[in-house]
């Protein structure tokens, strides 16, 4: 399968200005050199704890920010360095679903006008065609057509998220970034929305970047998973490999924190790996490996050299010295 989205060494640094003259004295390295491909029709899960740069990465890939460095190719078009104005024509191929379904809908527009606004801008449909398309989209996401003239505040969280999805689908995109689309919903609704996303993927051949901190949900929906820590991807593997054989100590720690519903299984799961300390500031990341301050398996080299991102097993990429033949301790895999 070919890659629909190629991200190479993407960096998104936010400048910090201090002092009397507001000179730039540093930068928050929210995303600090990430690379991955997303294949056509697959779902790439992007996980990590709060503040690790997941959402920034998602927004930067869609060029909602002017990125600091790097290359983004979506559907064969390089969009990393083009101007916002020329991006507008490319926008229909890539859309986004946001975390907070309340905030991402303009409170003063009706559902119909929210869904049809992208159509006003990018198509030359007649009024009747647009209305037909809006009804069609509402059917697709499971909203009653009678609600077309209501305002967003009249809906429940799950329904609002459906409106957001319908808007994202309006222009027949190929690639959708789902930025924690279920984090603001309660669990029963989460399942509905995730199932809706999967059905739409099958039906329309969509490609998702699914950003979440909910590891069990990512396990359910994603084909491959990328784990982020402090602005970098530390591990990228197929879902089954990652959940069965995590290679990076951070991934191990994350997975050990997923609660196991079956008590019998929970016994066997073994002890939780509890990481000590806080995440370092992305404005001042540690020298060497970003994870060296909290890693339970830290070695001397980790504090000096930033590990390269290498393929340690087929289709499983890890950035860790434990898997570097040069530095690996004796007896390690």
């Amino acid at each position: 399968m070919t890659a629909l989205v190629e991200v190479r060494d993407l960096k998104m640094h936010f400048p910090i200005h201090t002092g009397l003259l507001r000179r730039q004295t540093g930068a928050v390295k929210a995303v600090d050199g990430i690379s991955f491909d997303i294949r056509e029709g697959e779902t790439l899960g992007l996980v990590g704890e709060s503040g690790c740069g997941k959402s920034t990465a998602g927004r930067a890939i869609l060029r909602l920010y002017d990125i600091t460095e790097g290359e983004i190719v979506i559907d064969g078009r390089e969009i990393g360095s083009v101007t916002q104005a020329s991006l507008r024509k490319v926008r229909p191929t890539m859309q986004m679903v946001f975390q907070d379904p309340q905030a991402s809908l303009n409170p003063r527009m009706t559902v119909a006008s929210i869904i049809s606004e992208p159509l006003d801008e990018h198509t030359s449909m007649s009024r009747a065609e647009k209305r037909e398309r809006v009804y069609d989209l509402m059917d697709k996401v499971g909203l009653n057509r009678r609600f077309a003239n209501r305002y967003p505040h009249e809906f429940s969280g799950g329904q609002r998220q459906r409106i957001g999805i319908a808007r994202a689908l309006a222009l027949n995109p190929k690639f959708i970034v789902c930025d924690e689309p279920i984090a603001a919903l309660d669990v029963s609704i989460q399942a509905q929305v995730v199932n809706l996303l999967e059905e739409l993927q099958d039906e329309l051949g969509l490609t998702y970047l699914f950003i979440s901190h909910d590891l069990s949900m990512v396990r359910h929906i994603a084909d491959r998973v990328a784990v982020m820590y402090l602005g970098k991807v530390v591990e990228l593997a197929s879902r089954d490999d990652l959940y069965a054989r995590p290679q990076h100590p951070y991934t191990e720690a994350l997975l050990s924190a997923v609660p196991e519903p079956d008590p019998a299984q929970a016994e066997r799961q073994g002890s939780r790996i509890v990481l000590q300390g806080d995440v370092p500031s992305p404005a001042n990341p540690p020298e060497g490996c970003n994870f060296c301050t909290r890693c339970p398996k830290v070695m001397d080299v980790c504090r000096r050299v930033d590990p390269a991102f290498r393929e340690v097993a087929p289709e499983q990429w890890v950035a860790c010295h434990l898997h570097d033949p040069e530095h690996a301790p004796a007896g390690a895999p």
Partner: protein
Amino acid sequence: MLTYTIRRLIFAVPTLLIIAAIIFFLLELAPGDPMANVPLTVPSEVKEQMRQALGLGEPAPIRFVLWLRQFFWIEPLNVVDALVGTSFAEGELRIISWQNRSPVFITIAERIPQTLWVVGTSYLVAIAIAIPIGIYSAYRQYSMFDQAGTFVTMIGFSVPPFFSGVLVILIFAVQLRWFPSIYDTTLVVNSWDAFVMQLKQMFLPVMVLALQITSQLSRFQRASVLDNLGQDYVRTARAVGLPEKRVILVHVLRNSLLPVVTVIALYVPAIFSGAIITEQIFKVNGIGQLLITALQANDLPMVQTLTFIFAVLIVVFNLLADLAYGILDPRIRYD
């Protein structure tokens, strides 16, 4: 919405009665005698008779009720008489000014046009300037334009009109001689030259007032736009590929105008009452100046009536602001 409005209007009645009572009894406690300007040669018995003639013989609560009757019953009847040509109010005593012995409302009706012209214009000018400035300042936050705007609005905020008014008179009327320093109420606009003259004499007071209002409104507008620019729906609007102009003028502007419209509505009573100092400086013969002279002359009926009219305006425009909010924001529904 209608039930809400009616309910609010009913609740406004006790509010206004209490306000009227407070104003009346405060003025009752104030020192000063309406006979103070009568020459000392007039014997005290005659002065006492004059007091009785003004209705001061009755105790204060009775005079308060009489005033209420005059304000809410006899004065409206007079308006009806003047409009339709009937004579319902024939022989009834109107609220009489102690200064010139003529009905208070006639004087007020004479003064209102000047105030509306000068203060109303300055208000419109201020809105027209403040909203674009507020939007652009927020859109280019911390730019040179924004910094300069912040500086100017800070000056507009902090320099009182009795200083800025005198300053502009000194510069533009005395030194440069571009504009007259006094507003001439007797000017009749019947030719092009008279119209230009009217514009010229309005310019300084309008600008002094507009500076203040612009400062406040543009800050509100800026804060409100900033608030909305950070919202997810703005990010979404950009993500679906809307042009920047549409993002700002449709999504951000419409939502950010909401609180500003409320502020504008709440400021409207200030058009009538707030320009007292500016009117005094530029000799604009308006309501504000009327209130000042009435205070100086111990003309209690005039002061009482004017203050109460301001109170009514404040109550009414508070209600209008709430209703405007309900119309503009679909999330707010009163029923």
